[in-house]
C-alpha cells in the first residue's frame, strides 16, 4: 500500500483523476446567512472534502478511501470525521494495521499536538494488541518533545490498558530514570514515575511496599540534593508521603538542610539518608521552607505552630512574595486553629 506524500497529493486534484470519475463530489452546504468565521479553503482541501462527502454518502469503504482520507488528514489533522471513516474503512478491508501504524509514526511526530492522531493510534492498538513496539516509538516521540502531554498520556493509557503484561512494564522504571537523568525538572517524567510505582497496581518484585517506600524516598532525596529548587521533585516527595499516609516529620532532618543558607561544616558527614545540598545550590529553597512549615503544622501544638508561622512569614516577605496573600492566609488559619 503505497502512501503518497503531501507533495504528490497536491499534484493533481481528485476531480482531475480518471480513477475517481465514478464518484460524485458533493460541495459543502452553503448558508443563506453570513457564515461565522468562514475558512478560505485551498482548492486542494475543497476538492478532497467534496469527494469525501460523496464517498460517505455512497458508503464506499475501499482502498482508495484510505488515500482520500490521508489527503484530508494531511491538510487538517483535526478532521475527526475523516479519521473515523478511515478507521472504519481499515477494519472493513481487514487492512494490515502494522502498515497503518507505520504511517502513524510519521504523522504523530508531524502533528504531535493533535488529539486525533493519538486517539486513532489507541483504536489501532486495541485491535492489534501488540503494545511492546509502542514503547520504543513513544520514547522516540519524547525525543522530539519531552513534555508533550498527548505522548505521555498515550504511554500511560497503553500501560494501563495492557496492565497484566508484566513484560511490557519491566523496563518502565529504568525508562523514567533515563528521562529524569536527561532533565530532572521534567514534571511529566516525575508524574510517570508516580503512575508506575504507586498509581496502577503492584508489579512483580515490588510487593514489599515498605522497601519500595524507602527506595523512592532515597531516590527523590538524591534528586533534590542535585537540584534543590525543583518543584516537581518536592511534589513527588509530598505525593509519596500522602499516598502512604506517612507523617511529614519522617523527612524533617532532610528538609531542614534546605531551609537555611549553605553550612560548610555540615558536608563532612556523609549521610545517605539525608543527602545535603551542593555548595553551589541556591539556598534557602522556598519549597523546602513550605515543606518544613507543613511538618510543624502537622504537629498541631502551639509551639510548633509558631515555628510554622515564622517560616510562612519568611515566605511572604522574602522568599515567595508573589504568594504573600496565601502565606498570610495560612498564618491566620493556623493561629485561629490553635486558639480553639
Amino acid at each position: 500500500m503505497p502512501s503518497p506524500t503531501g507533495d504528490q497529493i497536491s499534484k493533481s486534484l481528485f476531480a482531475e483523476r480518471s480513477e475517481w470519475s465514478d464518484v460524485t463530489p458533493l460541495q459543502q452546504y452553503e448558508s443563506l446567512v453570513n457564515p461565522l468565521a468562514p475558512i478560505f479553503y485551498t482548492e486542494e482541501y475543497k476538492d478532497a472534502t467534496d469527494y469525501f462527502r460523496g464517498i460517505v454518502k455512497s458508503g464506499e469503504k475501499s482502498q482508495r478511501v484510505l488515500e482520500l482520507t490521508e489527503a484530508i488528514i494531511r491538510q487538517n489533522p483535526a478532521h475527526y470525521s475523516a479519521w473515523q471513516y478511515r478507521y472504519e474503512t481499515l477494519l472493513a478491508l481487514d487492512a494490515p494495521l502494522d502498515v497503518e501504524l507505520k504511517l502513524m509514526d510519521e504523522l504523530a511526530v508531524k502533528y504531535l499536538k493533535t488529539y486525533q492522531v493519538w486517539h486513532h493510534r489507541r483504536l489501532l492498538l486495541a485491535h492489534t494488541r501488540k503494545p511492546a513496539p509502542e514503547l520504543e516509538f513513544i520514547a522516540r516521540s519524547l525525543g522530539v518533545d519531552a513534555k508533550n502531554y498527548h505522548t505521555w498520556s498515550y504511554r500511560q493509557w497503553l500501560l494501563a490498558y495492557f496492565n497484566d503484561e508484566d513484560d511490557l512494564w519491566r523496563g518502565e522504571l529504568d525508562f523514567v530514570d533515563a528521562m529524569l537523568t536527561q532533565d530532572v525538572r521534567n514534571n511529566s517524567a516525575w508524574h510517570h514515575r508516580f503512575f508506575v510505582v504507586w498509581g496502577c497496581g503492584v508489579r512483580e518484585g515490588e510487593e514489599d511496599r515498605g522497601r519500595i517506600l524507602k527506595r523512592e524516598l532515597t531516590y527523590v532525596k538524591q534528586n533534590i540534593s542535585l537540584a534543590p529548587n525543583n518543584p516537581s521533585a518536592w511534589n513527588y516527595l509530598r505525593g509519596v508521603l500522602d499516598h502512604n499516609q506517612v507523617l511529614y516529620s519522617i523527612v524533617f532532618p532532610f528538609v531542614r538542610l534546605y531551609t537555611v543558607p549553605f553550612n560548610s561544616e555540615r558536608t563532612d558527614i556523609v549521610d545517605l539518608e539525608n543527602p545535603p545540598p551542593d555548595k553551589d545550590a541556591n539556598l534557602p529553597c522556598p519549597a523546602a521552607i513550605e515543606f518544613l512549615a507543613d511538618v510543624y503544622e502537622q504537629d498541631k501544638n502551639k509551639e510548633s505552630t509558631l515555628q510554622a508561622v515564622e517560616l510562612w512569614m519568611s515566605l511572604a516577605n522574602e522568599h515567595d512574595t508573589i504568594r504573600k496573600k496565601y502565606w498570610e492566609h495560612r498564618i491566620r488559619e493556623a493561629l485561629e486553629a490553635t486558639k480553639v
Partner: protein
Amino acid sequence: MADQTPLPALARLGHASHCKRCLDGLPDSQTDIDASRLALAFYCIGSLDLLGILKDATPKLDRDRESWREWIWEQQTRGRCGSGFRPSPFMTAHHPPEEQIECTDYDSPHIIMTYTAFLSLSILRDDFSRLDRSGIITFLRACQREDGSFSTVPGSAESDLRTLYCAFAISCMLDDWSAIDVDRAVSFIATCRSYEGGYGQSPYCEAQGGTTYIAIASLFLIPSELRTSDPLTPEERQLTIQWLLRNQDESGGFRGRTGKEADACYCFWCGAALKILGASDLVDANSLATFLARCQFKYGGIAKAPGEHPDPYHTYLSLAALSMYPPSVANNSTWRFEPLDPLLNAREETSQWAKKYIPARQS
C-alpha cells in the same frame, strides 16, 4: 513583581477588532479550525461580550446579531442519537435550505459545540424557542459511556474530562439532569485526580490547569439535591488550592503544569478554579494583569505569551481572567470588566440569561 509600576492601557478596541476579523473569515492556514468552528466563534463573540461591545444598539450591530444567531441555529442538527450542534457544515453536503435533512454519523451533533452554542446564543440574547430540548437530552444520554465519561459525538471512543464538563454545563443550563448518571461521572472525575492536587485529562494523566478547572467546575455545577458528598474533602481542597497557586510564576502569569512556562489561558483556567474554590482573594491580581498586559499583540488580540501571535482563544480567556481578577493598580478604566460566572464561563448577566431561557417553559 510589579506592584508599583502603572499598567499600560488594555487595548480594548484592538482586541475587539481582532475577534471581529476572525468572525469575518480565516485564512487557509487555519483549516484545522474546520471541525471546531463554532467553538472559535464562541471565543470571538464571548470576547465582544466581555468587552461590553454587544450592548450597543446600532442598526449594524442588530443586523450582525441577527445573522450570527441564524448561522448558529443552522448548526442545530438532528440524527439517530438526538439533537445538538455541529461545529460547522464541514461534513454537510449542499441541499436546499428549506429541506430538513437528518444528519449522518459523520456529521452528528458534537457535545463541546453544543455547549459553546448555548453560551453564544445566550450572549446574543436569543429566546431559545427553536431549541430541541428533548433531542438534546437523548443526545447527552447517548454520549455517556460505561466509565461515566462522555464521548464528543455518540459512538466515538474519544472522551476525556472536557466532554464531561460540557455535559454538566448543558444539564445545568437546561435545568434538567435526567440525561446523565451523575454518580458515575463523579467517579470518573475522581480517577483523573493526581497526587499533585490537580486533575489530568484522563485517568492516570499528569495534573494540568485546564482539566483541573474542568474537574472543579463540574463538581460544583452538580445541584445539591443530586450530590451524595461534598465536592472535595478539606484536605483535597487545600492541596488543590496550593497546587493552583504555585502555578503563578514570577512573570505574574499562570502555567498549566509544574515546571512549564506561563501561558495566558492558564490565568483563566487556574484563576477560575481558585475562584470556584473560594480562594480568589489569595491570587496576586496585579502581577496577573502585568503579565496579560505584556501578552497583548501590537495590532490587537492577546497571545499565549509575550511576543507570540494572538488568537481568539487566548484573547477570550485573558479577558475572562481579568473579569475575575481586576488589578487594583490600574490607573485607567480600560481594565474594568463586569463580573463573570466562573462555573459556566460567561459574563454573569449572560449566565443568568442562559438559565432563564434555556430550560423548558412551565406551561
